[in-house]
């Protein structure tokens, strides 16, 4: 059987104010402290479209090579649920902002193009907290802070063929949005949410099987696990001669399975009609071209450039382009210390030790600026300090925000390259290591390494390892 998956992704647009009113979109504010009559759906109010939200939607549409429609419209999607007090959600239906795009994904080194069917704008709904579980709750608590927050919904074509591809799509999708500053892509805060349609069909068949909608996948891990589970569940059901029921299932991350939502028999009768309170949008070419001109290099393009321009392994390029801030950090450091692979190693092992590759803010505000990292690498390069000491200096820079040279000077970390001084230390070490000398004479090269280690230890890691190796070899050959 062949797996067929399509993803619907909702991303919160990075605006200061809501989609149709001026309420702030800040995450984590006290419940119901960021609302007004418009986003609480009071009668008689008038929503007005946030221009920035439209602009961000177009930005994303261009990045996915979508056709931006010359005219689009908002519609009311009717349903009765307390997360939306006016009993309809303002969204786009027949005339979305953009259509027919694609996104390239990479799985196991092979790349595939996944179609994007449509991209539209809508408003988010309020958040419900159930007193107890959803099924047993006698009442629910509602916070309308999220109500009216601008969302972009993007529907992929059913082009994904495995849970792994679905996870790769979501990752690539998120990377584009974060890179473009369209969304912060934070799944934990709900800024990025994903539903999936999953079905199976006989290999070679062109018809789609009965699809099941999976909801409540709140992390990349959940997406992969939920879809793997669902594919297995459907395959087993079909193998046993059962029929797949078209339904919505919720992923239960704690228990590791999907379960059917209690069926709401009327749930999909949304009775869409044009939103009378919002006039249509006409998107002129000039606006689109202006937005296109402001687009930064996309992650995929930048990744390819990092490989060709800097000669980096694809693995390094992949990590360094996880966010715009990180890519810019790397390039700034390379401008001052033009050894890309060395810079890449330090960024990946030291800078990213305590901050995430996509944590734009932490990267931009790190006390170890690109210039300071370059300064540190210069000190290794000219032999002032060893690589080992450099890692300590990096830690000190991270905490204190000083230049490497200042730290090295103040703390006397300069590498010992004085041959006479090192020779004395080596003599002392040899004097107390007759066993190691004997092992070495019998051909055990590991013994020499142990001796180097002892010398490094005796000098507090400051000895120049190249000189220690040479001196030690000379002395051992004379014994």
């Amino acid at each position, binding site marked *: 059987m062949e797996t067929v998956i399509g993803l619907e992704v909702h991303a919160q647009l990075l*605006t*200061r*104010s809501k989609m149709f*009113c*001026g*309420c*702030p979109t800040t995450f984590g504010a*006290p*419940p*119901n*402290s*960021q*609302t*007004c*009559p418009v986003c*609480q759906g009071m009668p008689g109010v008038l929503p*007005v*479209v*946030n*221009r*920035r*939200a*439209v602009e961000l939607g177009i930005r994303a549409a261009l990045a996915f090579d979508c056709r931006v429609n010359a*005219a689009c*419209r908002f519609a009311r999607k*009717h349903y*009765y*649920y*307390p997360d939306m007090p006016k*009993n309809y959600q303002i969204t786009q239906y027949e005339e979305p902002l953009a259509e027919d795009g694609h996104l390239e994904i990479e799985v196991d080194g092979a790349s595939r193009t996944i179609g994007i069917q449509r991209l539209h704008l809508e408003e988010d709904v309020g958040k*419900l*907290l*159930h007193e107890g579980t*959803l*099924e047993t*709750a*006698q*009442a*629910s*608590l*509602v*916070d*309308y802070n999220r109500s009216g927050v601008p969302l972009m919904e993007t529907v992929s074509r059913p082009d994904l063929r495995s849970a792994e591809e679905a996870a790769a799509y979501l990752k690539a999708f998120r990377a584009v949005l974060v890179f473009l500053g369209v969304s912060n892509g934070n799944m934990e805060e709900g800024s990025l949410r994903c539903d999936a349609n999953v079905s199976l069909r006989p290999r070679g068949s062109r018809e789609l099987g009965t699809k099941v909608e999976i909801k409540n996948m709140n992390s990349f891990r959940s997406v992969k696990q939920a879809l793997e589970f669902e594919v297995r569940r459907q395959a087993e059901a079909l193998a046993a001669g059962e029929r797949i029921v078209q339904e919505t299932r919720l992923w239960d991350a704690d228990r590791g399975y999907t379960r059917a939502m*209690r069926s709401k028999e*009327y749930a999909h*009768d949304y*009775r869409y009609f*044009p939103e*009378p309170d*919002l*006039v*249509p*949008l*006409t998107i002129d070419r000039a606006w689109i071209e202006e937005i296109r001109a402001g687009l930064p290099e996309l992650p995929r393009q930048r990744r390819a450039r990092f490989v060709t321009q800097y000669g980096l392994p694809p693995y390094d390029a992949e990590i360094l382009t996880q966010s715009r801030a990180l890519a810019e950090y790397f390039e700034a450091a390379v401008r001052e210390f033009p050894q890309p692979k060395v810079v890449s190693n330090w960024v990946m092992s030291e800078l990213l030790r305590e901050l995430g590759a996509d944590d734009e803010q932490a990267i931009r505000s790190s006390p170890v600026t690109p210039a300071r990292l370059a300064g540190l690498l210069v000190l290794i390069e000219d032999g002032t300090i060893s690589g080992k000491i450099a890692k300590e200096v990096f830690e000190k820079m991270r905490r204190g925000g000083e230049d490497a040279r200042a730290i090295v000077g103040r703390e006397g970390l300069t590498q010992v390259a004085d041959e006479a001084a090192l020779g004395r230390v080596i003599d002392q070490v040899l004097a107390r290591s007759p066993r190691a000398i004997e092992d070495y004479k019998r051909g055990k090269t590991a013994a020499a390494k142990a001796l180097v280690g002892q010398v490094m230890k005796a000098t507090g890691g400051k000895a120049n390892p190249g000189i220690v190796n040479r001196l030690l070899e000379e002395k051992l050959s004379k014994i």
Partner: protein
Amino acid sequence: MITREEVLHIARLARLELSDTELERMREQLNSILTYIDRLRALDVTGVEPTSHAVPLVNVMRDDEVVPPFPQDEMLRNAPDRVGEFFRVPRIIEG
């Protein structure tokens, strides 16, 4: 002609409970609206763009600027039921 079942379906979508008399009255009223729509349908509208708005306006937008929201207490004041800073609503899933 709209049937009893269709009226019940629409009422259910709007979470309205109708008595038999109300149901019948709604059915009659909806039918008279539909009859009027049928008269409109008889008109030849070839080449006329479907109308979603009565005013010929496009692109009414605002800048992305924050306006102070309404005070929390004011927004919660008319709630039939509340717990602390939250609105409280009856159970959602029907048993």
